[in-house]
């Protein structure tokens, strides 16, 4: 997740990472990690605190003043839950947003490929 500030919008954080903030802490699938109250004051989350607690690497590009908050390593595997994450990507032909959630009701074969 690319950040321009270490105070991250809560909703954006959940949308991008799949981790939800609940009274018991940050939760994803069956995993809940307690967070101190100061980690999530109001509508933002302190990136440094979630980085530490969830094992999300926080890298800073000094020259360009941006950070990347990486995926959580606390679960030990790339998938924390079998539920498909929120994915919205651009349609190559139209440029319009394609939300993978719109595929419900069908079996889906997602095929990743590349021009390189």
């Amino acid at each position, binding site marked *: 997740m690319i950040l321009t500030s270490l105070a991250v919008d809560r909703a954006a954080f959940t949308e991008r990472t799949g981790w939800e903030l609940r009274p018991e802490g940050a939760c994803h699938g069956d995993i809940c990690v307690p967070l101190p109250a100061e980690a999530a004051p109001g509508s933002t989350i302190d990136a440094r605190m979630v980085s530490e607690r969830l*094992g999300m*690497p926080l890298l800073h590009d000094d020259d360009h003043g941006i950070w990347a908050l990486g995926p959580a390593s606390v679960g030990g595997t790339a998938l924390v839950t079998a539920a498909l994450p929120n994915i919205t990507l651009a349609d190559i032909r139209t440029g319009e947003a394609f939300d993978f959630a719109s595929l419900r009701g069908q079996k889906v074969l997602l095929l990743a*490929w590349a021009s390189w």
Partner: protein
Amino acid sequence: MRTELHPRGLEVVTVALDTGGPDAVRRWVDEAGAAHPSTIDEAHLLDELLGVVNVPTGVWIDEHGVIVRPPEPAHARPNRFADQPIPDGVDARTRDALEQVSKLRSESDKYKAALYDWVERGAASPYALPPDEVIRRSRPRTADTATAAAAFELGQHLHRAGHPDAAVPWFREAHRRQPDNWTYKRQAWSFVDRSQGPNDVYDGNWLDDVKAAGAGNYYPALDL
């Protein structure tokens, strides 16, 4: 294949993992003229979100939005170089590359048979895995691989923002932290050299890295 399976309830969605953007891939999509959704993932989100490390990769998702097979090699056709003699007159490095290419595994027949079985039988198919198994089989997520994802994300962001030189150290860090992520390597190499050969920007290149890893490991055997 989609023409046969779509009426039986399967949709195919392609995702181009291409930081180069729609212009880099539109030609192939137009040529294919597919009826299914064709999307592009310039940021390589799928590498992080699902654990994709190479292409072509397939993921199966059921009608309820639950993954029943995590990322694995998904070839549509057998390796057409597998039994072909190497032509005369090619230079040593090309010969070497063709030899490695001939050894890349493609289990297209087995994969398709499993896919057809799932389309036919749904959850009753032995190829549709329960959630715990899907999670277990997904890539390990260590501090190193998580850092690789963050580094690559910075790299692609800078590259797309018009700072390709600033992206390089981040791509290099991603390669260092997760050397078996071929997607991170091939994408970065492609910006320097379309044939992904030796260059002075990155330590690795396709041929030498494949030889070091073993061609048989480039696409691991399917665990059906």
